[in-house]
């Protein structure tokens, strides 16, 4: 399935805009917990070759003085990166949060597959649940935060 779909890659690229742009899916996958990636992993994932085997490392996170001023180094965050090539030549990259070669492998492979003609199906099958999970988590935080929002009322002095 995947090899033939690779051949249609060019065709896919000329189709109408996908709901997820590449930069968005790469970020979504990078931030997702590995358990979730595993849960939605396609069983028929194709063979690939490594362009860059998974490598653990760190990215320096920067902040800004006073939130808007000069950049400064806040501290590092662990990451893992990897790059793969499918049989058809499509290349996938990954830079994911945390130390997990398997997560980086899956992310790079997904990045490649999402660029092929089967990408549209994978958007529904993998990206949609990842996005739902992230949205659910974010909404939960927002709802709990909203419940702790303060409603001030001012006491009038000197009146009983």
């Amino acid at each position, binding site marked *: 399935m995947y090899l033939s779909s690779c051949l249609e890659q060019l065709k896919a690229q000329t189709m109408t805009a996908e709901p997820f742009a*590449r*930069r968005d899916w*790469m*970020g979504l996958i*990078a*931030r997702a917990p590995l358990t979730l990636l595993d849960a939605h992993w396609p069983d028929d994932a194709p063979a690939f070759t490594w362009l860059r085997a998974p*490598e*653990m*490392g*760190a*990215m*320096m*996170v*920067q*902040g*800004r*003085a*006073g*939130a*808007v*001023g*000069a*950049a*400064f*180094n*806040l*501290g*590092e*965050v*662990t*990451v893992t*990166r990897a*790059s793969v090539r499918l049989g058809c030549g499509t290349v996938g*990259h990954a*830079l*994911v*949060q*945390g*130390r997990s070669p398997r997560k980086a492998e899956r992310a790079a492979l997904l990045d490649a597959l999402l660029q092929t003609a089967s990408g549209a199906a994978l958007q529904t099958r993998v990206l949609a649940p990842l996005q739902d999970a992230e949205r659910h988590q*974010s*909404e*939960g*935080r*927002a*709802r*709990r*935060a*909203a*419940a*702790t*929002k*303060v409603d*001030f009322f001012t006491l009038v002095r000197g009146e009983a």
Partner: protein
Amino acid sequence: MYVAVKGGERAIENAHGWLAQARRGDVSVPDLAVAQIREQMALAVDRVMAEGSLHDPDLAALALKQARGDVIEAVFLIRAFRTTLPRFGASVPVETGDMQIIRRISATYKDAPGGQVLGPTFDYTHRLLDFDLADGAAPAPAAEAPPTPGPVPHILSHLGAEGLMQSEHAPDPGGTHDVPDLTRAPLEFPAARPLRLQALTRADEGFLLSLAYSTQRGYGRNHAFVGELRIGYVRVSAHVPELGFEIEFAEILLTECETVNQFQGAKSEPAQFTRGYGLVFGQSERKAISMALVDRALRARELGEDIGDAPAQDEEFVLSHCDNIQSSGFLEHIKLPHYVDFQAELELIRKLRRNAAGLQDAAE
């Protein structure tokens, strides 16, 4: 001076064996899982990440387990591990204005746009021990309410819009490679503010707290209001060279504090407020507030304020002593064998006493 001493290998090995057994404690009590530490000792994990200068909750939890709960030892383990990781690059500076807020308070504006959100705070608790926790009681689910969507702008941006808050220096145009990094080059004085902020965010919380408190008590007095304290999740983006675009590859919890401090004005500038800034990994508002106070104290020179002998205003004093790994490294090295030094001192003292006794004899 300390010299290499051979011997004691068996004693060392057995000591480490005992350490492992002591770490485990009573085996009739279940072993503590790293995930339990990560989830239930989350603020200790946050502190280890902040002072270890590496964001990875699982690693920090493991370090706490290995260190038997000794936070500075856990920070040491994280710093040591960090040196084994290749650095792939730097992020784009995080946009704390886009933070997903879980807590946000202001001591200066009651009706700040976006509201005051208490979040999961110890404030207003009575600090009475809760014995139900000892019984493992499950908490009731947290209350929820419909969120009001919309941006939550930084409160101090309103003062800035009126020109009452000193503006930060124009940001560098995304040239993230020129940012000074104390993990790559030794500290030199005077240190630019970005370098000071890096040192402060990874500094020992207790040390910063004491220094910040000292400014409140009058040592480098600089009365601060907490203009805004916000805690929440931010996305971290980086430019991927292979692709030519940025991806939001991580999400991390940060605590940010901006203080409002008075400034009398100078010949070139009208009277206005100035800012102290704190930004720390995890949920750690004591540290973030302390950092903001000390950041503001360290700006005394650039703002042309009178500098007395307040420790918090002395950047060499603050930056040279704020790192708990450096401090404990030097402190604890004195327990290592100094047999030769001590023999030399002992010899000297004996000689002085002999000489003194000789003089006395001669005088008699």
